């Protein structure tokens, strides 16, 4: 079976050490994390992770099953094949003096990136989008000289309004669909 980039949304209890438990699981089972983002949600006590990994179908199922074995993991959605919005945020500091500045600004315009800081010989640019879009901007700005860059890691959400209703607390894969909620 072929490896592909998979996206999981993982709801976890917002407790100390939970990130460590999730990361430790991926490390010891040898699952390769492409990106991992974690943050709070609108529900108190619930954090949400977006984890992007390289995995084939079988591995993806086992990742989901293993995540469910962690007591603090509330729900796992493999949204790889679902219509969804994925976003990454990058901050890029570009070397740009007075001469280059208009050209860089023009590039930013094309990529819909925002300039968030201007110094005498540099610009800091903020861009939100898919990894492809960020890669595209980075490729162009590299010619001017990138002195610093940071990415947030992908966050994702499925499209449509009723995701939570279609998938209430119970998980979604064949192996775990038989779970009875205690």
């Amino acid at each position, binding site marked *: 079976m072929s490896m592909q980039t998979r996206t999981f949304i993982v709801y976890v209890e917002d407790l100390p050490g939970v990130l460590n438990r999730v990361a430790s699981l991926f490390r010891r089972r040898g699952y390769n994390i492409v990106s991992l983002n974690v943050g709070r949600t609108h529900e108190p006590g619930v954090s949400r992770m977006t984890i992007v990994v390289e995995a084939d179908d079988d591995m993806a199922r086992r990742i989901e*099953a293993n995540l469910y074995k962690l007591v603090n993991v509330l729900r796992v959605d493999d949204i790889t094949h679902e219509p969804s919005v994925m976003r990454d945020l990058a901050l890029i500091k570009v070397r740009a003096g007075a001469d280059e500045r208009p050209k860089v600004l023009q590039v930013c315009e094309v990529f819909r990136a925002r300039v968030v800081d201007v110094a005498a010989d540099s610009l800091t640019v903020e861009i939100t989008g898919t990894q492809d879009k960020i890669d595209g901007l980075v490729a162009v700005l590299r010619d001017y000289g990138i002195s610093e860059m940071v990415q947030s890691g992908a966050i994702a959400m499925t499209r449509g309004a009723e995701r939570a209703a279609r998938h209430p607390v119970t998980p979604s894969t064949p192996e775990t669909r*038989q779970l*009875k909620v205690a």
Partner: protein
Amino acid sequence: MSNDEAQTTGANILWQALVREGVEVVFGYPGGAIMPAYDAMPAYPIRHVLVRHEQGASHMADGYARASGKVGVAIVTSGPGATNLVTGIANAMLDSVPMVCITGQVGSALLGSDAFQETDITGVTLPITKHNYLVTRPEEIAPTIKEAFYLARSGRPGPVVVDVTKDAQQKACHPVFSDDPVRLPGYRPDYSPLPEDLERAVEMIHRAERPMILAGHGILRANATAQLLELVQRCDIPVACTLLGLGGFPATHPMNLGMMGMHGEAWVNTAIQEADLLLALGMRFDDRVTGKLAGYAARARKIHVELDPAEINKNVKVDLPIIGDVREVLTQILPKLEERRHPGWAARIDDLKGDSAVRDIQTLPDAGRLYAAHVIHDLYKLTEGKALVVTDVGQHQMWEAQYYKHDHPRKLITSGGLGTMGFALPAAIGARFAQPEDEVWVIAGDGGFQMTACELSTCAQEGIKVNVAIINNGFLGMVRQWQELFYDRRYVATPMRSPDFVKLAEAHDLTGLRVTKREEIGPAVQKARETPGTVVIDFRVEQEDSVYPMVPAGADLHQMIRRPERNPMQETGEDP
């Protein structure tokens, strides 16, 4: 305003919580960070067994849990006390044994400061526990202990560590004990099989011509022996057991073929390779069971009944996974199954057995020498197969699995997944408390016995009666066997000189016996059974004897090294 009378310390709450969980015995070792708990202990109806090394405490809790079906408890101090538990925790994790380990921890104000005897034991044990907790306030103790026991015993069981800071033990609060069931939003261990999957399983079983059942530890954990018997009898399906599945189906039942895998009998492994249906019940296709995966049971369709969804398709790809408790699945499936007979398949298996029987060491003369397989076979006969046997890890463990026939569950306790040398003696001490009426025998090698031999002192102090059979061949036998077979007999670091085990027993005020000939086995076993207190028997067995058959690592299951038809050493009677 708070009522001081009603307040009590975290240490008291800890013991009250353990009493509420039905704990009768704990295995432990005191130290600075757990002293408040120890100080409170005498007020509670819980027996404490003082171990000689904390690894022993974890194995005792493990042995107690396996022999009783209940949760075993170990209690130790912080730092080295806690880290010494690690091997036993990993052992319990790989064999799915319900265990709660309580570790003392430095005061919460000192956490993270590299204080004296501070170790981040929740961090250390994170990958080898089902779950773990760091408790820093007395209010958290009661609910955490309740959760820990629930997690340890429910679903796929496993070890849980509860790390309690010293100040949480010392401070007082109003204890709140809840009788409500534990609710953990992210933990839902109750599975029920899907009706359509059961229908498919029934159809596959009905259609099979050469079916086999692979019975694992799950049969014992789920108490599914009766259901398995009914299935076997109704559908005429032979059973092969994993090491940890031994005893889940009566060994003397004609449909029980014995143990499968690396040291399984040749007819078992060959039958698995020829089967057209494998019905795997509560087992996980460990690499010691399958041999090379690519060549494993290629002709068989596979049904995998398993409690843990993460085990599905992990090693062996199966045609039909059924997630659920083995007993529940079998109970639901049995009414749908019709009678089946497979005379051709039974005849084929009989053929395979006949070929192996002539090679069996039990049929060979001993030429006045003592063979480990004879010791175990004779022990089986002398104890009428009724002893609770706890083995260590290595050659003797495989001979035990081959020659001591267990007809009942929980009568064989052995370290399977982790293969922990030193497991047997402490695990037997734990089992002793779980089954006080059973005759308990430790079978250990000279190497493994010495790893935890200090627990003889525990036997003496606590007045514990176990019988210890040391299969003493002067080598780390299993490693020596591999060196013989795969490293051109270069015996690097495997010859082992041991103390005089008879004197060692006597130094502990226990009884020691030595056996060098087969005819001495009976009287020695009889003496051990009659003598009060722990008895150690030093069986001086043949040094360079090997366990056969053997599937070399990385080979297909049927590509076994068979038992030699005649052992030349036995013919000459000379020392090698």
